[in-house]
């Protein structure tokens, strides 16, 4: 969401807010339509199959997030610099040719639309998977909506890229949570009986956290040894 906000802010500041915000709203409608269309379809899938598929998807997404966050936390990959991304996007926007369709600056509209849609698609999948596995897609959508409002309000207050947001810490936390739920639901879907049923979920969370911090420490030592 922070990445999408940076793109929209760059378009708004350099090319005008009307086209940037129209692109953003159009992308939000597209995302809402995806959740509304896929949500009811998921409720007819048997819960065991659903948890297997949802668990696998959450694990694939969660490990992608966690992998990047661990590499950044251990110094093997540069931290994402929202200020630099903002400057780069703004430079591209200033040099782009202005073409108008339906009274909108097409560059600002399409870049904002694509930025919000692509970044939001991951959120939509998380809403669908968490919501369907717990039987409440609307509640998961409300949670995601609240997070989006929070990011937009922060962006409106700052009127610039959210460079002070501890983005890697957030990515690390999201990766740990997705991986934890992915392991838990995926294993249940594969036919596993967890000791203590739902009570073992905190145990899985502690395991994933411990492993992740252990990997950060090990990779940091490895980097220092090579330096």
């Amino acid at each position, binding site marked *: 969401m922070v990445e999408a906000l940076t793109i929209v802010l760059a378009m708004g500041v350099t090319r005008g807010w009307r086209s940037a915000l129209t692109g953003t709203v159009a992308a939000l409608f597209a995302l809402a339509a995806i959740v509304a269309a896929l949500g009811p379809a998921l409720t007819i899938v048997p819960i065991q199959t659903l948890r297997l598929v949802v668990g696998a998807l959450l694990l*694939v997404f969660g490990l992608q997030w*966690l*992998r990047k966050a661990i590499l950044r936390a251990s110094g093997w990959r540069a931290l994402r610099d929202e200020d630099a991304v903002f400057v780069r996007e703004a430079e591209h926007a200033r040099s782009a040719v202005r073409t108008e369709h339906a009274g909108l600056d097409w560059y600002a509209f399409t870049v904002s639309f694509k930025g919000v849609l692509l970044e939001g*698609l991951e959120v939509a999948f998380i809403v669908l998977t968490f919501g369907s596995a717990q039987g409440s897609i609307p509640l998961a959508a409300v949670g995601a909506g609240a997070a989006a409002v929070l990011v937009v309000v922060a962006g409106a207050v700052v009127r610039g890229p959210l460079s002070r947001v501890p983005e890697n810490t957030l990515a690390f936390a999201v990766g740990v949570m997705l991986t934890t739920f992915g392991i838990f639901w995926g294993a249940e879907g*594969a036919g596993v009986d967890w000791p203590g049923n739902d009570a073992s979920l905190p145990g899985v969370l502690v395991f994933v956290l411990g492993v992740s911090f252990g990997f950060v420490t090990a990779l940091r030592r490895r980097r220092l040894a090579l330096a």
Partner: protein
Amino acid sequence: MRRFARFWWDFVVGDDWRVAAGIAIAFGLTALLAATSVPAWWLLPLAVAAILWLSLLRAVR
């Protein structure tokens, strides 16, 4: 069409396709073990830790 397929590949599989393949294999082994009388809850967490570590090692090599 090719760009569409590429987008979904990047979206789902990400930087390291071996992670997705490893998860698929881990799920298969977990399901096989769960079908026996042996407790299978420990297998997926350990497999995920191993998959993540191997992927990280490849990234820093």
